[in-house]
């Protein structure tokens, strides 16, 4: 790790942008990512040619997790760009094979998973449903319907505000065209998924639908574990940064979904600023502030429109699994009053994923907040903890 001017954790759009901008000033940059290949969630296996080219002066190490704050010992500035994961909310049948996250399905399809001829229901909230529907159609799937939980009125408000964001409107038109003919329901969500060995049918608000795959997307949850272990400050679940994307922890910058959810352009511009700022190119970084401000406005527009509705809290039945790692059901949890109590008494959140899935669900269902993060930032071989 020595000999580098900058270390970037995470090789999604924000991390790539940070690394490229810094490298282009002549800095020696190392990017670490726990996935084998760079790209992150959205660019998996298809980093846009322009960025791929710019990345050529950067050393990218895949399959490499940063597990704790010993990374700071090198004295090299760090940009955190660890992105976000999908939010899963439990409902009866959500653990059946064939039920996935929309982002997960998108990644699967991009890495070659065959969907030709499959009937897919997409449900949840936000523009990602449309983007994934479009991808699925291109790959020959039959998207039988899209269920958007947000009310129609909120969506209309969202759509009429879109003209301010040129890129998004172009995407919107493209999506609209390719989706022609796909039933799109608002005020609509999945109440239950049925099937013997895998999902065969879903019940949505007011009707049922046969399907081979059900992809759910309720939004994203930032991966703040490493930031927390490094001592960064969080607010409302996101890493707090100043105008230069610098965190409250000396020597650590953060960009992308760690600081807020709002799409790839927002992540890119934050990444560029963070990469430049971290190596001291503040004047260059400042030139990007107005572009970032525009995408921040877009992001708050997005969050407002797609807020989760309270009815979703009532979906789990007593026997619905909430914590998949440890098979903990809804009624195992109702006696307890905090995330820690539930964890210690039921093992909810104690498994392999350490509450990365059920933690956010329990926050939504019960208002619990599990603030406790311990190394490793994500599961790792014991031998990784033996290296000093």
């Amino acid at each position, binding site marked *: 790790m020595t000999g580098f001017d900058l270390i970037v954790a995470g090789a999604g759009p924000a991390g790539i942008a940070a690394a490229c901008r810094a490298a282009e000033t002549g800095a020696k940059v190392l990017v670490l990512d726990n996935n084998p290949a760079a790209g992150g969630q959205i660019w998996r296996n298809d980093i846009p040619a322009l960025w791929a080219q710019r990345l050529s002066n950067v050393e990218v190490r895949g399959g490499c997790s940063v597990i704790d704050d010993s990374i700071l010992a090198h004295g090299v500035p760090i940009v955190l760009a660890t992105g976000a994961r999908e939010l899963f909310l439990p409902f009866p049948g959500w653990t059946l094979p064939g039920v996935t996250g929309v982002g997960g399905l998108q990644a699967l399809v991009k890495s070659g998973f065959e969907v030709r001829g499959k009937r897919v229901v997409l449900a949840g909230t936000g523009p990602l449903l449309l983007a994934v529907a479009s991808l699925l159609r291109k790959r020959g799937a039959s998207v039988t319907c899209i269920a958007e939980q947000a009310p129609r009125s909120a969506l209309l408000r969202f759509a009429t505000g879109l003209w301010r964001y040129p890129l998004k409107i172009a995407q919107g038109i493209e999506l609209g065209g390719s989706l022609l003919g796909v039933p799109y329901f608002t005020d609509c969500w999945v109440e239950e998924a049925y099937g013997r060995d895998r999902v065969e049918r879903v019940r949505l608000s007011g009707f049922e639908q046969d399907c081979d795959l059900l992809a759910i997307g309720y939004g994203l949850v930032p991966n703040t574990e490493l930031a927390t272990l490094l001592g960064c400050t969080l607010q409302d679940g996101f890493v707090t940064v100043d105008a230069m994307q610098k965190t409250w922890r000396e020597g650590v910058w953060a960009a992308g979904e760690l600081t807020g959810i709002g799409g790839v352009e927002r992540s890119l511009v934050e990444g560029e600023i963070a990469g430049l700022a971290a190596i001291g190119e503040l004047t260059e970084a400042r030139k990007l502030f107005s572009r970032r401000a525009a995408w921040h406005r877009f992001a708050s527009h997005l969050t407002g429109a797609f807020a989760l509705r309270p009815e979703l809290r009532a979906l789990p039945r007593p026997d619905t699994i909430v914590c998949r790692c440890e098979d903990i059901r809804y009624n195992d949890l109702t006696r307890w009053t905090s995330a820690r109590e539930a964890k210690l*008494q*039921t093992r909810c959140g104690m498994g392999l994923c350490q509450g990365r899935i059920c933690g956010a669900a329990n926050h939504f269902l019960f208002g619990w907040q599990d603030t406790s993060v311990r*190394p*490793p930032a994500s*599961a790792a071989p014991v031998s990784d*903890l033996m290296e000093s």
Partner: protein
Amino acid sequence: MSAVPDVAIVGGGIVGAACALECKRAGLSVEVYEQSTVGGGATASGMGHVVVMDDSEAQFALTHYSSTLWRELAAELPAAAEYLPCGTLWVAADEEEMAEVHRKQSFYEARGVPVEVLDAQQLADAEPHLRTPLAGGLLVSGDCVVYPPVVAQWLLDQAGVTIHHQEIRALADVPAGIVVNAMGAAAPRLSPGIPVAPRKGHLVITDRHPGFVRHQLIELGYLKSAHSASGDSVAFNVQPRKTGQILIGSSRQYGAEHKEIDREILTRMLRRAAEYMPGIGALTAIRTWTGFRASTPDKLPLIGPWAGREWLATGHEGLGITTSLATGRLLADLITGRTPPIPAEPFLPLRCSP
């Protein structure tokens, strides 16, 4: 309803919970004060190994009696208590440690504890992932493993006592005939002057690797390192969980006050484990944490009256899960004037008063 209870217990760890249940069973009225989560202190950060120890006659008597109580309780415990009668296997690396095996063997056998000496081959058969060659080991088959936070909650549920979720600032403020300080390593805060010091430990839990370890394994160098009066130490100490997970320990540090992971000692601890079990590095670690043992100079807990209506049930160091049940029984006997099943004198706090 607002009558002052006979006994108020400050601290809802496994020791406080066991005391609450035994006092209740002895016919006393009991209330518990817990500032945070029941079983969330050292009880949530220890290993849950119920082990008969031979450091001193008093320590043997307490751990042996308590481990009998654990076996009696086993059938009643809920599944979530993860009772696992896996036994302890003391591992001897060389002939010198083999001599310790034989010394332990005669100590335990003389006191009616079933043990079995394993030679190098039998040890390798019993635990295929241990390195070879090792000299042998001593199997204490009556020892077991539990999941302490659930036991603590279960004991309190059995007792059916009121739990006030409240931080106590002064024992004098607690309305009760007797106030028991069962605050674990925090006990000196409200009972200044008691000889209890926090001793930090680190642990690592793995993903499920069923069968990788079959017994609680402890190196016999443990006694030397664990009891060195000062200085940091690590020892090979791994535990099979009922879930198929492996709990890897252990470390001991005085003077460390923060609950953060100390990467240097963690690294040392894991390297020590890998010296005994070379395959352990390839297992998946999912979480690390630390906890504080309440240590005393003579390695025995403080159980009994201290000052006025203030009583103590603390100072259990690295054995408080094991000795919690016996502690509850002794405390209740001392309060009610019954004759305790084992002599209570070695544990009376007054032994420490100047």
